[in-house]
């Protein structure tokens, strides 16, 4: 088939681009999270904030800083939404309803970017750039800061629970890493055709005498950080399927590259922070393997095009753009759900049953392959701890990871982490499917309707943000349910991660002994991949069987 060669070459170009940039960015990140020196602009910022960037915070203080900062973010964005009509550049749009403003505030502060509204029909330019774009940067920075704190916890010995300074981590992440890359990326996106202006919609007279509104806005500046920070909230309703957000096959690959850059680089920087590059490479390899499998599966599903409608049309092109084709759409779908991005360049509700099922499974995996910026790394490291624990049980020794003992208290924390999201997903889905207000939002009945609901709750709880868009979610019921899932799914795990970081920091670092499981070898890569799949598989197989699997077999 002539499609296979370009499909493989497209992946090869992507892998090559990442191979060149990930180690560089990984080094920059590791430096940002370990260097004692501050840049001049940072020192000015700390003085304005009246915080001491050199104070080594106890994990509890670090967690309180994360929560305090995020609380302010939610309140400010909520106020922004409620007051929109009184703000400049609002394009005449009204205030968001209370439940909607809350949902959106939580959504962007938790790095989820679930969108119940349609961007071009609900939000003015100031809300987009000074509200949402800002949180795109900051929520990404918070996730990366927590991952850095966890890596430091593993790297330290006898640290008395101290894991670093949140304000310094956040400010450095934004100013040294995210802002410079986003700036360059935004300009490149404009050159490729992405819109960037402050104009409202202009009506033009079309070729055949009708008229069409040409929508404007600060799109490129939002698009760049939307992908780079694995946020995913589109400027327009159609997200990255919209030609003004993603105009060409080249911009498509560039956006996919931006999505993957930081999550993989975080894994690389982890190795450098703990002083053993191979540890980072092992984690990165597991992420890459799981992602590669999901890319292959979705691509196969969409090219084969099973299902009544795709068979009748002779191709699964419903919801896909001609310029991206099947390969460019499938790759994006795998990458956006394998990271916690949730931007879409194809409508996931219209994916084939197996393709949509894999996208759903990617999120259920807990967003670790390679996951969101920061959150992907700490999520994968939690499973690494589970893996060494299971292997320790098999040989009857106290397990350790990077010289840190996994005792009872540690494994209780890890278990709490691993169980939080599945509980949210399953309880949330059950609530949605038993409430009439929940069922009212579904576009379709049968297995596909079930998948629509489960997909939404899974997306929110894992902070992904993509949707089976047939679901009408802009109702008080769905806004409240999904907002709660996003909030708990973000901050409960974060607090657990920081608590564990504190415990690890306190411990000495034991030298590796004869009974230590090496965590940088291929064997560990295989074990960790297996644990990731089994933990998720056992949790979600029943609901997957009733949704996408039944639909695939019908």
């Amino acid at each position, binding site marked *: 088939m002539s499609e296979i060669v370009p499909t493989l070459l497209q992946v090869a170009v992507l892998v090559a681009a990442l191979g060149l940039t990930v180690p560089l960015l990984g080094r920059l990140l590791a430096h940002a999270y370990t260097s004692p020196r501050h840049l001049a602009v940072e020192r000015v910022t700390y003085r304005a904030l009246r915080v001491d960037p050199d104070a080594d915070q106890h994990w509890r203080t670090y967690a*309180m800083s994360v929560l305090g900062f995020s609380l302010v973010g939610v309140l400010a964005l909520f106020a922004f939404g409620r007051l929109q009509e009184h703000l400049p550049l609002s394009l005449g749009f009204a205030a968001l309803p209370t439940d909607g403003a809350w949902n959106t505030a939580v959504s962007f502060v938790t790095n989820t970017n679930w969108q119940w509204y349609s961007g071009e029909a609900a939000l003015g330019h100031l809300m987009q750039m000074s509200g949402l774009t800002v949180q795109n940067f900051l929520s990404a920075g918070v996730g990366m800061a927590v991952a850095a704190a966890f890596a430091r916890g593993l790297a330290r010995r006898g640290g008395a629970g101290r894991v670093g300074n949140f304000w310094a981590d956040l400010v450095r992440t934004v100013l040294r890493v995210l802002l410079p890359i986003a700036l360059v990326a935004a300009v490149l996106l404009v050159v490729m055709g992405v819109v960037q202006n402050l104009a409202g919609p202009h009506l033009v007279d079309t070729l055949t005498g009708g008229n069409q509104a040409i929508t404007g806005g600060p799109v490129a*500046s939002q698009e760049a950080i939307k992908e780079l920070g694995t946020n995913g909230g589109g400027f327009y309703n159609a997200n990255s399927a919209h*030609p003004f957000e993603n105009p060409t096959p080249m911009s498509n690959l560039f956006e996919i590259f931006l999505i993957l850059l930081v999550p993989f680089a975080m894994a690389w920087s982890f190795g450098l922070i703990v002083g053993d590059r191979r540890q980072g490479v092992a984690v990165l390899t597991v992420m890459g393997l799981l992602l590669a499998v999901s890319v292959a599966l979705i691509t196969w599903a969409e090219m084969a095009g*099973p299902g009544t409608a795709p068979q009748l049309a002779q191709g699964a092109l419903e919801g896909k753009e001609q310029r991206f084709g099947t390969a460019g759409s499938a790759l994006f779908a795998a990458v956006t759900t394998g990271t916690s991005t949730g931007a879409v360049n194809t409508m996931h509700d219209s994916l084939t049953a197996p393709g949509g099922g894999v996208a759903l499974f990617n999120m259920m995996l807990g967003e670790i392959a390679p996951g969101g910026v920061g959150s992907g790394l700490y999520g994968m490291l939690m499973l690494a701890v589970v893996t060494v624990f299971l292997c320790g049980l098999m040989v009857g020794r106290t397990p350790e990871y990077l010289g840190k003992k996994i005792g009872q208290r540690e494994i209780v924390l890890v278990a709490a982490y691993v169980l939080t999201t599945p509980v949210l997903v399953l309880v949330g889905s059950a609530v949605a499917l038993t409430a009439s207000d929940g069922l009212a939002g579904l576009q379709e009945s049968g297995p596909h309707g079930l998948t629509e609901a489960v997909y939404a709750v899974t997306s929110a709880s894992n902070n992904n943000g993509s949707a089976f868009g047939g679901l009408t979610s802009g109702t008080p019921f769905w806004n409240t349910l999904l907002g709660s899932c996003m909030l708990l799914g973000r901050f409960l795990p974060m607090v657990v991660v920081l608590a564990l970081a504190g415990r690890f920091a306190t411990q000495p670092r034991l030298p590796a002994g004869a009974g230590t499981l090496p965590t940088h070898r291929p064997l560990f890569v295989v074990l960790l991949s297996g644990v990731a799949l089994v933990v998720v598989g056992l949790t979600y197989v029943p609901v997957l069987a009733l949704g996408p699997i039944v*639909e695939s077999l019908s």
Partner: protein
Amino acid sequence: MKDLYSLFRFSLAGLRLLVAMTLVLGLGYPLLVTGIARVAAPWQADGSLVTATGAHTTDPGEAVGSALLGQLVDDPTLFQPRPSAAGDGYDPLSSYGSNLGPESPELVAAIRERRAAIAEREGVPVGEVPPDAVTASGSGLDPHISQAYAALQVPRVAAAHDLSEDDVRALVEEHTEGRTLGILGEPRVNVLELNIAVTRAAAPAAG
């Protein structure tokens, strides 16, 4: 109590940081990008608008559309775009796909109906109607059709405009883009640009 107090204290520090970051990231950054875009790529930044002669413009007053956006073609003699689920069709104020699933009876019926209508319009058997012609895109604003769908429409457009099929085929060829670098995306034909070219080629004959 102690935790609540520290939460409050950190919220205040957080508020100061949020204000500072809003100025830098929420105003400085997007306005800087807007400024650079204005200088480096003004045409793209304003939506890649084109005039009735196919020239680039940044003035919506003289534009007939955007090279990046599909539009409704309310003229049966011209090339038709893909079906669209954006509003009443190709409405940028409500960009979206149908989001109908692969087993949706509504989608199956729509595809069947579109296939029959297109086959009749072009005078071909239904089996020859390509998939992009009967499926709505994700944005509802897809500016392109496949080469197959363009080829299918050539005889009708040529006849309606008193042009030879070879001439129209040459115009299609001219407005076809291959895969980027030979590997990215799909070959595609820009409908608005093609229709502009057809209209211009037919203009002298139409008098």
